[in-house]
């Protein structure tokens, strides 16, 4: 077979077929990242509708039912379409280069994991154009809202979840096989960059919980179309059963969206502090502990549902325990920066903002973990503020940090630092104006997912909306930066950042189409 021999030398195919039929991890990573950005803009535009409606009390722009469709689709698209694919894209691009592998372990399946997604989201988004309207039961799709009272488009939602779950599982299997089987000689487990470690553990979480999500939507499908009574007490089932199964998936899911972020931050801070990462081993163990704990805290999302007191207490204490390994991580990042010779390029700015703002989201999480207090906060804007703090200046900022950090490696050009900094500062200011007032709204009792509100909430709402528009608009700067950087700019060196360590910085910038077709010299591999 001559194909096998040519394989090491060929470049990308020409035209559209390069993207449709590629098996190259870098191409597939690029596809994931662009898809994620498109979904980020789509889900973001839904958020703009929400914030515009909430700009002042009363119903102005949209019908309440359409408002519910917007909150639902915003959540679903951001979680499954923007954040998760972005991290898979980063994994595709970086993991093989970080461990000295020629590609992902299962390259054809890698292509399939990606190409399911555009079709799945096209099907999900098409419900917006159907007579019955898009799903309107919230991204957590609690039964019976999502079963007995759901619009008929729920069927397409269910199947979309099924196939995007299949995509996630295949992607995760690929990452695990790559990390366990494709490491270059000398790349022992405890020498792997933390981004690889966090993704290994994330992939494990994905394989463990995506099938549970498939199970719960399957039960919904049967309740809706085949007369079963899983979530109907009249037949001996229970709507609360839905919440248990959903959150058994849902809680690990939130760590799926944050563990790779920890990996990104653990790569960036040492580079710009010009110091080795403080406490590498403890970082690995903390990540594993967080993953383990994520399986035994799910019911803290449902304290008010009426659980036995023993359950409430167990889930409260188990949840608080997560603060310990998370604290280890935050202190390690701070200790890494301590007395480092720091510079503040855009990736570092995003990373530092991550450490501060994610920690704030963590603290409000601790507040929410206290069962009796949660009775007050439950389903208010305090919860909205909490999870947006961990997801936007948390997960999304880490994705942006990663983009700026590795963009020179991907394109071969330095990005425009002035525009990057402008993007950071507008995002940073915007995100805080957007979400900080929502804490006050929630503490004062404003419920989430409601298009109208009492007059006393008016001021904080318009402030929040202004922040939302600012944050939303400034994301277009990122698009400009990326396109400019692809088109040209100052040539990037292989090392790119003078403090950067790791195998990905030993290859040229832009990274050749195929890297490490022969494994790197084991002497180059040092502990992070």
């Amino acid at each position: 077979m001559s194909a096998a021999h040519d394989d090491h030398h060929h470049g990308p195919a020409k035209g559209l077929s390069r993207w449709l039929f590629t098996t190259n991890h870098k191409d597939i990573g690029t596809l994931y990242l662009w898809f994620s950005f498109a979904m980020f803009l789509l889900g973001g535009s839904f958020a703009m509708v929400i914030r515009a409606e909430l700009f002042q009390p009363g119903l102005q722009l949209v019908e309440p039912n359409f408002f519910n469709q917007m909150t639902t689709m915003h959540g679903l698209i951001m979680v499954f379409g923007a954040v998760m694919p972005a991290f898979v894209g980063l994994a595709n691009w970086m993991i093989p280069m970080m461990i000295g592998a020629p590609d992902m372990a299962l390259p054809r399946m890698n292509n399939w994991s990606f190409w399911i997604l555009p079709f799945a989201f096209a099907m999900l988004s098409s419900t917006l154009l159907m007579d019955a309207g898009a799903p309107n039961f919230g991204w957590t799709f609690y039964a019976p809202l999502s079963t007995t009272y759901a619009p008929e488009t729920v069927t397409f939602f269910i199947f979309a979840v099924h196939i995007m779950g299949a995509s996630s599982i295949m992607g995760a299997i690929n990452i695990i096989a790559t990390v366990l089987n494709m490491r270059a000689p000398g790349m022992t487990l405890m020498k792997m960059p933390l981004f690889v470690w966090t993704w290994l553990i994330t992939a494990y979480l994905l394989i463990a919980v995506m099938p549970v999500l498939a199970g719960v939507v399957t039960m919904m499908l049967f309740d809706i179309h085949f007369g079963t009574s899983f979530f109907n007490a009249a037949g001996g089932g229970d709507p609360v059963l839905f919440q248990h199964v959903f959150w058994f998936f849902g809680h690990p899911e939130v760590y799926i969206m944050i563990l790779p972020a920890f990996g990104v931050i653990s790569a960036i801070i040492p580079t710009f502090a010009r110091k080795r990462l403080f406490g590498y081993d403890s970082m690995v163990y903390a990540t594993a502990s967080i993953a383990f704990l994520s399986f035994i805290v799910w019911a803290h999302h449902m304290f008010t549902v009426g659980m036995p007191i023993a359950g409430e207490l167990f889930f409260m204490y188990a949840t608080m325990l997560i603060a310990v390994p998370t604290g280890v991580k935050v202190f390690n990042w701070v200790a890494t920066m301590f007395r480092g010779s720091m510079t503040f390029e855009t990736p570092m700015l995003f990373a530092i903002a991550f450490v501060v703002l994610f920690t704030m989201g963590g603290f409000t999480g601790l507040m929410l973990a206290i069962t009796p207090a949660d009775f007050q906060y439950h389903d208010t804007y305090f919860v909205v503020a909490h999870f947006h703090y961990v997801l936007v200046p948390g997960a999304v900022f880490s994705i942006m940090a990663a983009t700026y950090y590795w963009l020179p490696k991907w394109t071969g050009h330095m990005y425009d630092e002035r525009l990057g900094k402008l993007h950071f500062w507008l995002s940073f200011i915007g995100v805080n104006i957007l979400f900080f007032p929502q804490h006050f709204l929630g503490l004062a009792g404003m419920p989430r997912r409601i298009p109208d509100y009492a007059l006393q909430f008016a001021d904080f709402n318009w402030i929040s909306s202004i922040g939302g528009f600012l944050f939303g608009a400034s994301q277009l700067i990122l698009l400009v930066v990326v396109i400019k950087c692809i088109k040209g700019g100052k040539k990037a060196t292989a090392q790119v950042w003078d403090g950067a360590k790791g195998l990905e910085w030993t290859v040229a910038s832009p990274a050749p189409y195929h890297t490490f077709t022969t494994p790197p010299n084991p002497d180059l591999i040092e502990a992070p």
Partner: protein
Amino acid sequence: MASAGSHETYYVPEQTRLPFFASIGLVLMVFGLGNALNDIKSAESASLSTWISLFGFGLLSFIIFQWFSTVIRENHAGLNSDQLKRSYVWGMSWFIFSEVMFFAAFFGALFYVRNFVVPWLGGEGDKGITGEMLWPNFTAVWPVIENPNPALFHDPEEALNVHEWSLAFFAKFLPFWNTVILLTSSVTVHFAHTALKANKRKQLVQWLSVTVALGVLFLCLQVLEYTEAYEHYGLTLNSGIYGSTFFLLTGFHGFHVTLGTFILAVMLLRSMKGHFKPDDHFGFEAASWYWHFVDVVWVGLFIFVYLM
């Protein structure tokens, strides 16, 4: 860790058309199916949607067939290094783990319903007040033969679990024989594997044929049991939580047995064509792992759905 040599030959296919078209097949299949279900629910003709779904299924099946053929051809052409083969081993192991978690969701639902929901509906403990208010006549027993609201979910006449611990009962109890059949088939597939490793072709084909036959027999008995459930016991998908958990657990298991039998049948055909080597037969091994997994799930089902 692999040696440096095996890295150089890790086969990365240049391009592939398979997954893109597989995605089209997959999305047509579910989109058509979703439309068909909605059509049926609103009493409209579902024929167009059904054809779309079937076309998608056909396309997907065709591509999966092509996909496996390609992989097998590449292996026969010697493109697959030991390291690549290990990737398949990891891939299959983690796929089976994902299947375990899928069943875990349904087992979890069963345990939650039996231990919490039904007793609460029957008036037990602090949560009992809801049941007392809504359906004061409901008594908590498992299996639930009398539903809280029989007007919405009709009562089955009888449950299909073990209600008598005697030899005479078990002798006529289909699930017991199904357990015997599946456990035996796990042993026979192991014999086939041993024969393959000893390069005894004839025994391989014989034991594998026996395994496939046992799989088919299991499925026949399962169909028989479902027919009896629907026709004689009034136990349907619509007969409350007992029917719901019973049919989804045994149904998804039955679906996996169907798939497993089909996979083993393909392995049988491949064995007859002389495909496997004593030291290179991961396709066969993966199929047998899958079969053992399906078997273990059945043991769990037999214990928690039928015995306890």
